[in-house]
């Protein structure tokens, strides 16, 4: 019985994320959710601050990077937005929402660059 359970315990120890990682995601998630609420009320500066905190707490949280990119876009910080979108896609390359947001951003960014080169 003990021998049968041992590999399971080892596998859990190896493959499950450490406890502090779960805490980090939970903390980051609460920052992200608060950011969403304030952004919906038009408080973009506060929202961006919250999402910055979220990616600081959990740099592997793709949704937080996506939201941060949107916050930067709203502030006109195109370079920062580009980097944040790239990071979000690097973490979650198959996420269609992030891809769509990034495509829309790129369209505006390229238009702005064309304008300044005219």
């Amino acid at each position: 019985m003990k021998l049968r359970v041992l590999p399971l315990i080892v596998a859990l120890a190896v493959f499950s994320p450490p406890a502090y990682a779960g805490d980090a995601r939970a903390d980051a998630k609460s920052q992200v959710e608060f950011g969403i609420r304030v952004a919906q009320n038009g408080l973009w500066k506060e929202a961006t601050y919250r999402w910055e905190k979220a990616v600081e707490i959990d740099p592997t949280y793709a949704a937080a990077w996506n939201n941060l990119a949107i916050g930067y876009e709203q502030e006109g910080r195109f370079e920062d937005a580009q980097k944040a979108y790239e990071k979000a896609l690097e973490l979650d390359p198959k996420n269609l929402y992030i891809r769509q947001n990034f495509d829309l951003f790129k369209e505006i960014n390229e238009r702005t660059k064309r304008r300044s080169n005219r």
Partner: protein
Amino acid sequence: MNARSAAAIVSLVVLCAAGACTNFYEIPIETPIQPKLDVSAFQRILVVGFITGGTEDVDANLETVRLLRSQLRSKSNLRVIEAEVLPLAELAAGQGKSSAGDIPPVPPLPSEGQQASAPQPPPEPQSDAPRIRTEKDLEKYQSIFADVAFWKKIGEEYQNPLIVTGTVLFTPQQTQGFVVRNQEGWDNLGRRTTMPQRVWLERKGFVLSPKFIFIDGRTGATIHSETFREEVLYEARQNTPALSSYFELMDRLVPSFLGSLSMQKIRGIRTLLR
């Protein structure tokens, strides 16, 4: 599986679905685009007039001045000076004959009360107005934009505003050739189908090529210039008035023009994620 456990599973599925639905939120955003020009030194703007050419069906000088002034009034922070539209082509042609010092009198600055009055009637067409048909014809008049003394004098008359001038060429165009179009039909089973078909088409329309020049009214020097080109083609049998084509084409350019002077905001929708 009894009824209770089935209900528990169903409610769990519903909860999960609801949870999944609220994992994203669509949100409207406004992306600010910084202006190309720093106009903080100016409180006023004077759209003075343009050297225009092409079709005579539209008074491109008057229409461009009116359109830009009205756009600036509503979409920029600068105070728009209402003044007579200068017949710039005639002045430029006259300048070629006389010395640079002989600047024609600038129309007086209207008072605050006058500014709110109805738009001025269009100036009478003058027989000695130069005929400008092509870009090459326009080139002959370009030297007026480099005449610092001329622009400085206008600047002094209007208390050193930012001056907007330039050239506008609005020319008719006509083309003919094969165009691929989808032809609708019905197949043997009575279903609607579309088939691409090459058809010979005669089309006509207009080309609008404006060059906007921004001049510092304090110094008379050009600080920025921008060239655009837009065109539109209609089927030859479609009788579109030149003036509506002009506005259709200007509508495409105006945001870029305004973007030179004031911050523009591009509205869009993004998806926030949890």
